[in-house]
């Protein structure tokens, strides 16, 4: 398939791996920021193609995983109301709140629908004027423009029965938080390709400078990731720390200005609590006051819910790249996608869930095992 097969070519992959092997003189720890990248790495076994000296640790970039338990419980409280049609991206449905997940609420009769785009919710709202249609607006900067557009259009078209429950998160503050941690091991980053499609990569330059880490904005196909690793290792071996762009077919330095303007019109930056990590200052978006008629938190006045995560879960450490899924005694045993303990197992893009989906819980030594 055009534009895909070119990036999954075994011969080219081998060439890049050989080059990585050739230039690597000592151990390095890299973090891929995005859940989508983690998914690709485990799905294609990319980490196993790399020399042992290079360790990939998995970043916080799964928006479903890091949505706080409090926010999920709020979503559940709203979704259970008989006057509500609750719409969500598909992989949010299996994420457990304190009591159950949205799939269970659906089985009990709640009207919960999977949408591919928040704009679809406007159609649902128009078709159901006697219902309140709520969209669970989660995600990083990638999904912010389409979520903003849905709210903007709802206001413009006077669709009063549409609102959003916003739990947006931002990548740069989370990278800063990882690098500030005394436990940090990460020496270089594969930056988030799709986030930067929207935002550009200008805002990563001060991070690279301040923490003296190379950041290579990287795509999601196997060859993208391998090339991103190569570029990062080149910088590390040369002792440099710049922001580089591996993904120029999609990303440029300035990003998508139209999308950014829309996002800024609808959202403003706020502090945000991340599941498994805790509160990070200025790490999220909330709706601006101008759009309060479409703010589900205001409309439904769901009270703050106090929640607690299982004590044995190490997802906070996994999200910050300090530990890997198989470092956890519960991984694949008590903690599975059917019965997740914490953030990184709850969504398909979480590091623990990706390891599980691609069978690493079945392997004796998941770190290096070549199962054949």
């Amino acid at each position: 398939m055009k534009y895909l097969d070119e990036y999954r070519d075994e011969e080219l992959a081998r060439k890049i791996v050989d080059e990585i092997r050739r230039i690597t003189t000592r151990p390095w720890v890299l973090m891929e920021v995005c859940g989508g990248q983690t998914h690709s790495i485990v799905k294609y076994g990319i980490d196993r193609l790399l020399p042992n000296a290079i360790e990939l640790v998995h970043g916080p970039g799964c928006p479903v995983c890091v949505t706080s338990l409090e926010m999920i419980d709020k979503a559940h409280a709203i979704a259970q109301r008989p006057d509500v049609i609750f719409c969500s991206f598909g992989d949010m449905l299996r994420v457990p709140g304190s009591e159950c997940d949205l799939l269970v609420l659906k089985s009990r009769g709640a009207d919960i629908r999977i949408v591919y785009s928040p704009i679809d919710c406007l159609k649902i709202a128009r078709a159901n004027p006697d219902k309140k249609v709520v969209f669970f607006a989660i995600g990083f900067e990638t999904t912010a423009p389409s979520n903003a557009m849905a709210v903007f259009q709802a206001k413009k078209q006077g669709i009063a029965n549409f609102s959003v429950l916003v739990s947006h998160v931002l990548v740069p503050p989370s990278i800063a938080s990882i690098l500030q941690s005394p436990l940090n091991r990460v020496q270089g980053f594969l930056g988030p390709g799709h986030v930067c499609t929207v935002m550009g990569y200008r805002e990563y330059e001060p991070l690279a400078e301040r923490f003296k880490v190379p950041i290579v904005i990287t795509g999601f196909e196997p060859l993208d990731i391998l090339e991103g690793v190569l570029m990062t290792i080149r910088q590390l071996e040369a002792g440099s720390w710049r922001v580089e762009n591996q993904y120029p077919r999609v990303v440029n330095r300035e990003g998508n200005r139209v999308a950014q303007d829309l996002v800024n019109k609808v959202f403003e930056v706020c502090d945000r609590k991340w599941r498994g990590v805790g509160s990070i200052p200025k790490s999220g978006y909330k709706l601006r006051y101008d759009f309060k008629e479409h703010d589900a938190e205001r409309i439904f006045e769901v009270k703050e819910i106090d929640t607690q995560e299982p004590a044995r879960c190490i997802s906070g450490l996994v999200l910050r790249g300090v530990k890997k899924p198989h470092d956890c005694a519960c991984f694949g045993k008590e903690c599975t996608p059917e019965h997740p303990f914490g953030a990184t197992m709850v969504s398909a893009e979480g590091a623990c869930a990706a390891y599980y989906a691609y069978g690493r819980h079945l392997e004796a030594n998941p770190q290096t095992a070549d199962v054949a």
Partner: protein
Amino acid sequence: MSSEVGLLGASCPIPITNYKEIVLAHGSGGKLSQQLIEKMILPQFRNDLLEPLHDGAIFSLGKQRLAFSTDSYVVSPIFFPGGDIGKLAVHGTVNDLAMCGARPLYLSAAFILEEGLPMDDFWRVVQSMQEAAAAAGVQLVTGDTKVVDRGKADKIFINTSGIGVIPDGVNIQPRNARVGDRIIVSGPIAVHGIAIMSVREGLEFESEIASDTAPLNGLVEAMLRSEADIHVLRDPTRGGVTSALSEIAHSAAVGIELEEARIPITEEVRGACEILGLDPLYVANEGKLLAIVAAEHADELLGLMREHSLGRESAIIGGVVAEHPGFVTMKTRVGGRRVVDMLSGEQLPRIC
């Protein structure tokens, strides 16, 4: 656990999965479906015929060996590109029998109809079943109809059961897979699931993707007529190729190794899977089969399958190995390797 376990062990055995009610994922053909059957149903009815959890039960009456199978059809929408619920109901049971190595003979059909279903729609479904049965060479010999209140069913649900005879010398079962065997798939995968999803989600692709639903008994008969030593046949319906192969690896206590680059898939279906964030290995097929055959006969069988109209794009996609018994691994396109595990719940579209 409660100390008040009732008489006859009547406490519900399922809580380890943490679901107090049935959720849709229990019907996905993945791990939750398997748990539901193994924890709730199998212990109550355990017997030698049920135990293999094959597509159908295989048993003898007098000197004749028979296969017996049943399946229910609840697809929505009931009409879709390439087929409809009626066609699916006939093909599904015919195929389950064929996967036992049987020649399907007789079907039953039970209809649960929702009040308000247009008579024209019912007529179209019945007509379609008649055509499908005639084409597959089976007779519908008994049936039932029930009507429920509006909203208590979704237009029409159909159950079909079927009986077929197994020719002498044919022994096809999942546990027969042997180390060294090759695995053949009869054509491009994931077509049916994507066809259904594209109409259900209102997705429009450049070209319409039509379901691959088809009766496989003709193809199977041709395969069985050959000299090839076929060990296992399986139609990878719900849960896709992965679930079917995982079950085989499990019941034969062998490992299975796939090569991603050899698995046939059309451009349209691959594109749709990429857009929807779905893995085609888990998407349903309705007119495809997997054959596990002795290595020395693999090429011969492949050639024969390619001569049949339903097997033109057959391909060898992997083999049976002694390593990692009970699970399936795959060599990825870029030369990496991973385990291909059964799905936990339903495949849900990813956010980004």
